[in-house]
């Protein structure tokens, strides 16, 4: 069949696809049978530990490992990881020992003297230092805003700040590394890219990519921070080689929070204007932020992929700081840019005196957002909102806010999937992707089960190994749209082979056969059928194996969404309690509606957490992170999670990823809801009691 004729299965007749499919590995996860990297224990395995520089900017003058070397149980030491540290927490040396305790003691026994240099760890502190600020990235479109202020019905001018956030994966970064000979090895890695890590790590260890097997069957979160095995990965491989034994090196919480990536901050000074009829007129802004030691930085401001913003001048400045480097964090740059844009828009709407919902509908680029805004407004009960923010008094005040999002989520070529059918009727599907927590394994099995007409339990899906067919990293929400088409094509190819075998048995041409309910049957006369097993018994003795490649026509890029948040502000404590979130999200053909809803809910939770709690705090005097833990790096807890209503808004019948988009607009919608409730605009995230009382003071 030509590629473009292949379609996703009609939901009217499908058994699994576009339905709610419980995760195939759910039971393994709740019973503990699922093995994460953390759970891997090999015979004779040692434990690795890394010594990190305590200073934010320093050069190693000398390093003395003799005391560590002399400790019983210490099997390998590396003392040359880096001679300079550009942030507190950078890797300097490492040890492998019989137990984790010995490894820790040995690290403690290594003596390093540092030449400590001055540091800067915050964007605000660094932005006035020309040596630390990169050349601005400028955006200039339409008329010069300075010629337009006088024509505007409303002009606002303010400063906004979104702090650095962490990925906070519950399973930390880490690896178990085993050499299987001089130049062959196996690595269990908590990663969102098994093939990518196989390439990168093999390169770092100077072996052939095909000689390194990377395995990640289950992982406890990555959010964009686990595309590479990191310094800890290559260090672990080296330790294992030196010691001649497998080594396990899992980072602890401190290491995870200082050294494995973060989502950059965004500081903005902005002037913006709106016309009397609610059209955005002009934006002029300077932005600063830090990606860590480098100077490249940028966020998605203004959010031109959703809104029509005609006259713009912005200058974005990257600030080099002595902090751990940024990594992609769920929709990199978007939650920040979205918060800035949607807050500005909301402020202007309030100043012009228009309904912020209507203003959004006027400024969006495409009709889909208008429809979604209407659907969301209905879901939350927008008419119940506070019509005049600030007019109501009392301790507890309620309000609503909204914001829109967009994302790509199209697939990428290069994925290869294999399906094997045994003559005993067994079905296996394998592809070298991984499950970042989104439910990949489940739809891989479901796609095959659907097209072969089998119960999902009959399909054994294998993912999470670089020995399986090529597939890309799970980032940019591209996984589903990259993987699912290849799986579908492999399933169809395998089915075609079955039909070839069954056709003469049933006396029907292969093109007139179908698979349903565990049988292969004539489409026009289903009673003319054979059981799946009967057909398989006639396959060649070794069964069959078919490969599927990515099929562009099964996927599409571009999604839209709109979210509505209702909050209750306790004006006496400054606590903001989310009451309800309605999240309208398009993702094309939802392969697994349950997983889609779960992604939306997860994104909203992370977005609320950004709005209310998350804030990496770097200390100017010491240059150290003040909250490298989960005590003071706060996140939304189970008790703070409100009612979340996901609305799956399907606009087409192709597959599009949506791992990231649901996190984008939640923080902005929450801030807008706080304003709607109280008339107080909080322009610095997170919205904590401190921000609340500071804003009250500023206002009075």
């Amino acid at each position, binding site marked *: 069949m030509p590629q473009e004729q292949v379609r996703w299965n009609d939901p009217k007749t499908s058994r699994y696809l576009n339905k709610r499919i419980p995760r195939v590995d759910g039971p393994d996860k709740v019973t503990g049978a699922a093995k994460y990297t953390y759970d891997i224990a090999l015979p004779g395995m040692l434990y690795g530990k890394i010594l990190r520089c*305590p200073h934010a900017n320093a050069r190693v003058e000398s390093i003395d490992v003799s005391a560590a070397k002399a400790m019983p149980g210490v099997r390998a030491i590396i003392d040359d990881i880096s001679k300079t540290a550009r942030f*507190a927490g950078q890797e300097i040396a490492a040890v492998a020992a019989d137990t984790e305790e010995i490894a820790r*003691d040995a690290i*403690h026994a290594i003596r390093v003297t540092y030449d400590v240099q001055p540091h800067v760890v915050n964007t605000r502190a660094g932005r006035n230092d020309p040596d630390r600020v990169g050349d601005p990235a400028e955006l200039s479109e339409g008329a010069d805003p300075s010629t337009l202020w006088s024509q505007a019905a409303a002009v606002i001018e303010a400063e906004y700040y979104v702090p650095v956030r962490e990925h906070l994966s519950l399973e930390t970064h880490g690896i178990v590394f085993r050499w299987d000979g001089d130049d062959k090895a196996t690595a269990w890695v908590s990663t969102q890219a098994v093939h990518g890590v196989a390439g990168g790590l093999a390169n770092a260890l100077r072996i052939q990519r095909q000689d390194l097997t990377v395995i990640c069957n289950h992982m406890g979160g990555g959010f964009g921070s686990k595309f590479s095995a990191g310094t800890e990965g290559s260090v672990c491989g080296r330790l294992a080689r030196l010691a001649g034994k497998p080594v396990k090196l899992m980072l602890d919480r401190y290491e995870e929070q200082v050294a494995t990536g973060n989502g950059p901050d965004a500081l903005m000074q902005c002037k913006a204007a709106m016309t009397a009829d609610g059209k955005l007129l002009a934006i002029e802004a300077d932005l600063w932020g830090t990606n860590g030691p480098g100077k490249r930085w940028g966020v998605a401001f203004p959010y031109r992929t959703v809104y029509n913003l005609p006259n713009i001048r912005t200058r974005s400045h990257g600030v080099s700081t002595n902090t751990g480097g940024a990594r992609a964090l769920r929709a990199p740059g978007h939650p920040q840019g979205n918060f800035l844009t949607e807050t500005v828009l909301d402020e202007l709407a309030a100043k012009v005196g228009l309904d912020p919902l209507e203003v959004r509908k006027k400024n969006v680029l495409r009709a889909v957002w208008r429809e979604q805004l209407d659907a969301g407004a209905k879901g939350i009960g927008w008419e119940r909102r506070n019509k005049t923010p600030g007019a109501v008094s009392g*301790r507890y005040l309620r309000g609503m806010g909204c914001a829109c999002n967009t994302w790509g989520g199209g697939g990428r070529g290069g994925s290869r999937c294999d399906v094997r059918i045994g003559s005993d009727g067994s079905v296996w599907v394998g592809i070298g992707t991984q499950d970042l927590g989104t439910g990949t394994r489940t739809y891989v099995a479901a796609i095959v089960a659907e097209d072969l007409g089998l119960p999902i339990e009959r399909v054994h899906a294998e993912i999470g190994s670089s020995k399986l067919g090529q597939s890309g990293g799970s980032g940019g929400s591209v996984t589903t749209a990259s993987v699912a088409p290849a799986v579908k094509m492999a399933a169809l190819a395998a089915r075609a082979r079955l039909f070839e075998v069954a056709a003469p048995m049933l006396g029907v041409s292969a093109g007139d056969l179908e698979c349903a309910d565990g049988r292969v049957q004539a489409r026009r006369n289903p009673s003319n059928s054979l059981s799946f097993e009967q057909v398989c018994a006639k396959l060649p003795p070794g069964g069959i194996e078919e490969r599927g490649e990515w099929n562009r026509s099964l996927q599409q890029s571009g999604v839209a969404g709109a979210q509505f948040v209702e909050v209750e502000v306790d004006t*006496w*404590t*400054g*606590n903001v*309690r989310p009451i309800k979130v309605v999240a309208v999200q398009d993702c094309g053909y939802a392969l697994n509606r349950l997983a889609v809803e779960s992604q939306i809910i997860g994104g909203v939770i992370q977005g609320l957490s950004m709005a*209310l*709690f998350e804030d990496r*705090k770097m*200390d*100017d*005097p*010491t240059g*150290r992170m*003040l*909250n490298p833990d989960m*005590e*003071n790096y*706060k996140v*939304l*807890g*189970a*008790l*703070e999670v409100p009612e979340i209503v996901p609305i799956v808004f399907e606009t087409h019948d192709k597959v599009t990823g949506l791992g990231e988009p649901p996190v984008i607009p939640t923080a902005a919608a929450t801030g807008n809801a706080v304003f709607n409730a109280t008339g107080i605009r909080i322009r610095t995230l997170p919205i*904590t*009691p*401190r921000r*609340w*009382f*500071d804003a*009250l*003071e500023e206002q009075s």
Partner: protein
Amino acid sequence: MNNFAWLEPKSVDEAAEALKQGGIALAGGIDLLTVLKERLVEPQQVVNLKSLPGMRSLEGRNGLRIGALVTLDRIAADEELGRNFAAVAQAAASVGSPQIRNVGTLGGNLCQRPRCWYFRDAEVHCLKKGGAACYAVAGNNEYHAIFGGGPCHIVHPSDVAPALIAFDAEVITNRRRMPLQEFFVLPSENVRAENVLEIGEIVTGVEAGMRPGTFSAYVKMQERPSFDWALSGCAVVLQMNGGRVQDARIVLSGVAPIPWRSREAEAAVKGRAISEVTADDAGQAAVRAAQPMTDNRFKVKLTANAVKIALLKAAGQRV
């Protein structure tokens, strides 16, 4: 953490002796474990108080008597205590999470070390660890003291202590008995310790007399509503007479290096009926002498509101 010997003492005397020999007491271990892991202390020996008999009784019917090894969860759940000493039960219930309350003990809660992020960071050699400076002064002090600070600016982390002090509780050790208020010391008196415990001294329990006709409450302001420390908190005990406050104890948490008794707030309600107006006045009075640092101005208003809410709650009014 360093390697240490483990002792399971059979008597308080044996435990006390071991503490004199460089040991450190372990109760639930919730706090001690993290302190050991960060190498903030490196003891020769860890003395497991849980191997001792006794110190586990809890009584709230004819006065309050709580052994040092009673878990916070038991304090929070005891009905009689909840009736007669409501603020204490409420304070215990506000601590951390169920897991922490199930394991953490009263003795450990009173003797826990501060949460100051400079103190907790092994790499920062602050005043409290024998260093030369309090890093909170020039650094980030958003969670630090607005009363009684200097030269170190920690806040005492206990929620339970202020509530007990509001009932004039006494603390009992293997050597002495004293008002719980006097158990805690300001950094200006001793920057290295938060209380007056001497080496070899063990808290065995707390006691407070019955206070008929009192109404009490504990209110805790948190950044995150579930599972968080007090940004600020307030324990209130009101002795009422004919609808008016005859006597009041108002003790603040999370704002000073020790549980902070606010005599100003107490004076503001004395002789008056509790209403939103009096409660507000008391809140204002409580913070009049506050000395916020660079990042914690917000705590001033927050604390005034904590006092206000606690008073209204103690008086049984809707808030």
